[in-house]
């Protein structure tokens, strides 16, 4: 369990993290979302005691980070930036971390095996690809078999197999009752991984809810219906006070409707349905709607490539 | 249009790319997929004339890159976002590129605006975040208003807003009739962006087809069916009826059923005949990731294994509850390793699988090989790979056998 209480971090006049209060609970994967510059990395660094909060505090299982004896046995973290010496081998990197926390040497080999780096364990990490580096970082996080795990952008640089693996890993860690706190920019990935979401923007808490609630609250949901008896269906829906709209190619859409309600209605009227599918907006859409105000670098998405503006004169030269 | 013919690259005795032939057509976003080390970057470098092919050739608009007249105005590429002099400002970096190829300076400010870096254009790029560096790289690719664009992992380091922007940008570029070739590891992102796919594994072509065909060819479509939660016997009844009609039924985690092998109207009729009310009947296509994973099994370099945790005592912090047993987990490991090619277990794809007429990765005779045929990827407890998996709903048909190469043999 990670508890943040009024956590604040100022760099000069700039407030990076502003009075954050939330709890990351065990047994589920909690996603940590926010645009670039929202303060996610700063928050994670404060959790690990790397940065000192300007105000407020963070508790790891009820204790301050620097009060933990052998902290790697309580919390393991993968930070976004590379955190190892390129001239050292993967094995030695993990070994020195293990020794500092009294973790047996055999465990080093285990985690190397777990992340699939055994074959290159003795090689200098300098030559590692981004994906291999990511695996090394994950190995370091798992080293102390901690009850709490924190991952900052874990799929960065991983290939599809690696992405699938880390997703499965995080879910199973949570299923074992551990606390899993993960930040990511990849909404589609988060939608598959996280159960709960903490969203921040400009250092402030924007949402702390379950995934389902978050999407429901921040986007439109509807039911799509197809039926060979379209006219009768429209009639039945109309009489039940449900508004259906055409969505093209013969389907109907009912805003905010409950699929089970429509299913029961159709059964009562002996209507044949060829599709009855509840549709929900993606996490990305919901996220965009929530954070629209707090994005730092706005691209001109409306004008991808202004072709005419700058003339064709030079092209002919 | 990019055209590769028999493209091969050897480094010493390691073959990075072998006999690749494909075309990247204008007007569409073509995704370029493959596991790490499969030769994607090497191929991109050869397209851009940075590396010389050992055999074969690759042309852009009919010319090899190095013979292209005014190449920077015809081809734009984002390869490595870090290929920028850190001490130079974003604007000066672009300006020097523009001057090299006779592009007017005002175009620099235009592309800076397009990528949203106009406010930081005067700052030295050393202090740029990964995402800002990526935007700068994209700006450089757009500089010459090229007809052909190559992007290697374009969304790396971008935040959700940036990811959405890049996706829309690529689609818009393709809609303008340009050739857009994008490599990425993010399947979910690719599924949303690309129209066409080129998949390679171990330097060889595995697939060259539309995204839709690729998914259909490598996995089964299915229907999600839900019966009233309040009456579990309805669910049993429908299951039995569907099985009897020749469909396959698998339970999903939330109590719904995953039905394969029957079209939606048929399921509707069966439910009606069995007097079962439906609360949901929705068509689903497997994810691009599932399809991709199926295809590239055996072409992956670094694999993870189960965590044994021998000799490591678990100190429980005060107040923490003991580990919960994980349902479905029969061994002490934390999670199931990625299925194929585990030590001691039968390889998912037999080397070359010459006797399998259906194709090298269909492996219809070995159902346990395909863990993704299992239902409910969401929140699913990890399962040991030995656990008997459900048989694949339908033997996946392989597209045209001619444009597919075996991933394992013939190296």
């Amino acid at each position, binding site marked *: 369990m990670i508890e943040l209480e009024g956590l604040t971090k100022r760099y000069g006049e700039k407030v990076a993290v502003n009075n954050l209060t939330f709890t990351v609970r065990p047994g589920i994967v909690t996603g940590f979302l926010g645009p670039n510059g929202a303060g996610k990395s700063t928050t994670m*660094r404060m959790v*690990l*005691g*790397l*940065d*000192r909060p300007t105000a407020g505090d963070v508790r790891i299982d009820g204790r301050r*980070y*620097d009060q*933990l*004896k*052998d*902290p*790697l046995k309580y919390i393991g*973290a993968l*930070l976004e*930036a*590379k*955190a*190892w*010496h*390129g*001239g*050292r*081998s993967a094995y*030695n*990197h993990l*070994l*020195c*971390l*293990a*020794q*500092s*926390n*009294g973790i047996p040497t055999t465990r080093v080999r285990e985690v190397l095996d777990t992340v699939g780096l055994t074959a290159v364990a003795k090689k200098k990490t300098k030559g590692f690809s981004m994906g291999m580096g990511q695996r090394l970082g994950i190995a*370091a996080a798992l080293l102390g078999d901690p009850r709490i795990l924190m991952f900052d952008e874990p799929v960065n640089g991983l290939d599809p197999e690696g992405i699938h693996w880390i997703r499965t890993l995080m879910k199973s860690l949570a299923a074992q009752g551990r606390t899993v706190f993960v930040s990511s920019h990849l909404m589609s990935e988060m939608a598959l991984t996280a159960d709960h979401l903490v969203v921040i923007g400009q250092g402030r808490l924007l949402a702390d809810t379950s995934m389902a609630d978050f999407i429901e609250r921040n986007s439109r949901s509807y039911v799509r219906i197809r039926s060979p008896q379209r006219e009768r269906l429209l009639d039945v829906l109309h009489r039940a006070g449900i508004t259906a709209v055409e969505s093209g190619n013969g389907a109907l859409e009912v805003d905010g409707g409950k699929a089970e309600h429509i299913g029961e209605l159709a059964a009562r009227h002996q209507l044949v349905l060829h599709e009855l599918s509840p549709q929900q907006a993606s996490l990305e859409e919901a996220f965009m709607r929530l954070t629209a105000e707090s994005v730092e670098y706005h691209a001109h998405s409306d004008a991808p490539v202004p072709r005419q503006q700058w003339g064709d004169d030079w092209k002919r030269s | 249009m990019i055209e590769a013919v028999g493209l091969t690259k050897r480094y010493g005795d390691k073959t990075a790319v072998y006999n690749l032939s494909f075309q990247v057509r204008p007007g569409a976003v073509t995704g370029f997929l493959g596991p790490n080390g499969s030769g994607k970057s090497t191929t991109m470098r050869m397209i851009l004339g940075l590396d010389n092919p050992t055999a074969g050739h690759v042309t852009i608009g009919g010319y090899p890159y190095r013979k292209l007249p005014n190449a920077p105005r015809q081809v734009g590429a984002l390869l490595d976002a870090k290929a920028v002099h850190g001490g130079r400002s974003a604007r000066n970096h672009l300006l020097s590129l523009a001057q090299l190829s006779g592009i007017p300076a005002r175009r620099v400010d235009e592309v800076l605006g397009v990528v949203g870096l106009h406010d930081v254009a005067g700052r030295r790029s050393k202090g740029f975040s990964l995402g800002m560096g990526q935007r700068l790289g994209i700006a450089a690719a757009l500089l010459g208003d090229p007809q052909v664009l190559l992007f290697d992992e374009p969304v790396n380091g971008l935040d959700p807003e940036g990811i959405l922007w890049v996706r829309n940008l690529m689609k818009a570029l393709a809609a303008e009739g340009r050739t857009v070739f994008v490599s990425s590891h993010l399947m979910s992102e690719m599924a949303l962006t690309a129209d066409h796919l080129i998949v390679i594994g171990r330097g060889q072509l595995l697939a060259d087809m539309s995204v839709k065909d690729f998914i259909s060819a490598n996995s089964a479509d299915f229907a999600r069916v839900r019966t009233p939660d309040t009456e579990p016997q309805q669910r049993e009844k429908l299951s039995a009826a569907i099985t009897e009609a020749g469909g396959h039924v698998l339970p999903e985690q939330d109590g719904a059923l995953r039905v394969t092998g029957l079209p939606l109207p048929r399921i509707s009729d069966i439910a009606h005949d069995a007097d079962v009310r439906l609360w949901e009947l929705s068509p689903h296509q497997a994810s691009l990731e599932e399809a991709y994973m199926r295809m590239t099994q055996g072409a992956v370099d670094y694999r993870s294994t189960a965590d044994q945790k021998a000799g490591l005592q678990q100190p429980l912090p005060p107040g923490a509850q003991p580990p919960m047993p994980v349902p479905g987990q029969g061994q002490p490991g934390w999670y199931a390793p990625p299925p194929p090619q585990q030590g001691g277990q039968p390889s998912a794809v037999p080397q070359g699988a010459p006797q399998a007429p259906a194709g090298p990765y269909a492996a219809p005779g070995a159902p346990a090989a395909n863990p993704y045929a299992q239902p409910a990827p969401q929140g699913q407890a990890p399962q040991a790979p030995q656990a008997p998996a459900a048989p694949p709903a339908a033997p996946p048909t392989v597209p045209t056998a001619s444009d597919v190469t075996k991933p394992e043999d013939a190296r």
Partner: protein
Amino acid sequence: MAAAQVVRSEWTKIRSVASTVWTLSLAVVVTIALGMLISALSRSEFDGMSARDRLSFDPTFISFAGMSLGQLAMVVFGVLVVSNEYSTGMIRASLAAVPQRGTFLFGKLAVATALALVVSLATSFAAFFLGQAMLGEHRASLGDDGVLRAVIGGGLYMTLIAVFSMGVATMLRSPMLSLGVLVPFFFLISSILGYVEATKEVGRFLPDQAGSRIMQVVPPVGDDTPYGPWGGLGIMVLWVIAALLGGYVLLKRRDA
């Protein structure tokens, strides 16, 4: 207990990077080889020396002549041991593993200092014996008055140079910045101050000048240094303590 773990961990760190081996072996080789060369040259020039120079001829100190350059390698060693953590990003993993920053710094310094001490003492003795062998009939012996003190002192001097560099690197974090400060400090400022009569007094209290006093057995004629061999070393130790304290306070305070 915790400190022992940190020491073991730091030992793994220091032995598993190539820079440790090359900086230390460079220090050994340069110090000994240059000492031998200058000893050999001094022997051949002895006959041509003035009486005054012969009077202050210090065979022990001559055999340590290589230290002027060898200490540069010790500076690099001291700087890299600490600043590697920052330049590679390892510091984040290290401080997450050992959040008690004082313990972390103590463990790191203890291991690096012990290693530097062993290497320095061995170098000092080797430089002395090989240098004396080159000096032939003008040689000193270990039993002579003050010689053993000078030889052990030479080892301590090299060690303290390394520790001082560690302290400075802890304050400055960047390896380039640390070397950029330390190398001119030892090679330029110290000698420039020494040339000008007005600043000579100040220069004497710099760590290298004060510390190297311990290696002198025969003081130069008309020597008016206000401190003795141990006094000089004491001044150097004060510098080292100041650098370490500065490093400790900054490490405690700032964000990693």
